[in-house]
């Protein structure tokens, strides 16, 4: 019995390893046709689902596909393969896919989210850990933990119907845009970031804070010189974990980013992110298109794996 139980528990634990490896291998295998076809060039190619001639290396007439071609800076399309349309229908063509647009969309929306959420989350964490009296702090802290549990699709709906119109009024541009998507993403990660930053700050021993106060330090000086340096590693780890969350978030962004495969020229332009590309195109895709979506999924998986391992390894080492 003892041996059996030990074997079962060992296998269950190993399952984690198998699933993760399985995810990687499956994504890689399913993406393989696209990987073979486009190689690493995929990540710098802004074209998605574009017909290009197979033989001619340079087309005779080049016209831009983008509908707001006036504002297009030709340099953005230095990689011209994807932007060519053939005049003669009889030339054999093929469809090509590139991941640059969703990759840029993912990174930019995450960046906007972080820039927006970070100062506010720090403010909330400082408020909860150092300013608010105990009962208010535990009430507000509990409420924030609950808010972190709200399904992300709710943030997306609220963002689309209530928040985006205001942002569009303030900054111009479309209601669905990189900016609104990034800001809603920021609001979504806010409670999570605030809660774990507060937890990190709370690891500072009272006696250490008291020693600084006993030297005549002000609250701000205690926060700046004692609490932040002491919990720095945990706080940075919290921020990276939040970044990992934002990178892979689908539903809060899906309503807002616009879901168009175009590089944004302004922050108020619509674009697309990797999770949203997957969510909205899986239904219709097949063949190389499907394989390219898996290529995107693989890129996202590797990115988030790298970010989280980085945070774990350098900042959130568990003491056992």
């Amino acid at each position, binding site marked *: 019995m003892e041996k059996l139980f030990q074997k079962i528990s060992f296998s269950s634990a190993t399952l984690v390893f198998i699933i993760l490896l399985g995810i990687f291998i499956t994504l890689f295998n399913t993406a393989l046709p696209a990987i073979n076809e486009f190689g690493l060039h995929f990540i710098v190619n802004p074209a998605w689902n574009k017909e290009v001639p197979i033989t001619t290396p340079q087309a005779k007439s080049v016209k831009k596909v983008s509908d707001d071609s006036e504002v297009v800076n030709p340099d953005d399309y230095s990689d011209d393969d994807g932007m060519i349309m053939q005049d003669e229908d009889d030339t054999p063509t093929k469809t090509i896919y590139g991941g640059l647009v969703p990759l840029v969309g993912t990174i930019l929306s995450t960046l906007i989210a972080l820039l927006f959420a970070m100062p506010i989350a720090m403010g909330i964490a400082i408020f909860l850990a150092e300013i608010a009296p105990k009962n208010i702090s535990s009430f507000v802290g509990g409420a924030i933990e609950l808010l972190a549990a709200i399904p992300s699709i709710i943030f997306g709906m609220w963002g689309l119907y209530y928040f985006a119109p205001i942002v569009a009024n303030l900054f111009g541009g479309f209601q669905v845009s990189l900016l609104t998507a990034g800001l809603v993403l920021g609001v979504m990660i806010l409670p999570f970031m605030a809660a774990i930053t507060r937890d990190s700050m709370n690891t500072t021993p009272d006696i250490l804070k008291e020693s600084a106060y006993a030297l005549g330090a002000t609250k701000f000086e205690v926060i700046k010189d004692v609490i932040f340096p002491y919990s*720095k590693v945990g706080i940075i780890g919290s921020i990276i974990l939040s970044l990992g969350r934002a990178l892979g978030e689908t539903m809060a962004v899906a309503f807002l980013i616009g879901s168009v495969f175009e590089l944004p020229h302004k922050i108020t332009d619509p674009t697309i992110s990797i999770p949203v590309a997957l969510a909205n195109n899986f239904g219709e895709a097949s063949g190389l298109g499907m394989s390219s979506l898996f290529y995107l999924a693989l890129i996202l998986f590797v990115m988030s794996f790298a970010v989280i391992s980085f945070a774990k390894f350098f900042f959130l080492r568990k003491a056992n």
Partner: protein
Amino acid sequence: MLVMNIEKFSFTYPGAEAPSLKNITLPIEKNKITSLIGPSGCGKSTLLRSMNRIHDLYPGNTYDGKIDLLNETTGEYDDILAIKKENDFIQLRQKVGMIFQKPTPFPMSIFDNVAYGLKISGIKNKTELKDRVEEALKGSALWKEVHDRLNKSAMGLSGGQQQRLCIARAVAVKPEVLLFDEPTSALDPISTSAIEELIVELRNDISIAIVTHNMQQASRISDYTAFMYLGDLIEFDKTEHIFLNPKEQQTEDYITGRFG
């Protein structure tokens, strides 16, 4: 001459029904060491933490009575329980320093630790900072051990060194009173005796109050001893009187080890 005079002082924690300190009257002599002894829970730490009002970091406490602190420039006494403004708290804490049960080095270099109190009080001049840090480290018998690694993190020091660093940090701002809250409870015997020697030396410049659960320590280093029990001050006298012929039965029971 008294540096501090505690009169009819009572203290109640927020939400507590009964006061933790009841009607305490205790003089703290200038340039002497006064130790507070008593079994755990007797209120000795609570009393010590009232003397720089560090309690006020956590709101809702009730004070009653008076704690007078000598103003060195005017020669008069000010009641520290009357302090309300943040600025006055800061000045009080620069006059009345504190050392805790465990070493509390800040997460910064050895130099920056000692210079911290000086920097926040507005001293920016590099040479002045350097001189004051050196003086404080020498005064805390730590200079020889650390002078060649002032820029290294204070976390690398041993427990005893860290505690002496905390003393240097408190001494650097030239306080009039230093409060020690069981400063050697986390240290080995050798580090403990180094700290005790240091405290005795500091007496020349600073008035000292020390809470200790170690009666030998109190008898070794202090000039005056106060015995507390369940929030009351039972007996206060010169240390030798307390230990050789206590007037109260409870004091005698405690120092002879019959309870505690």
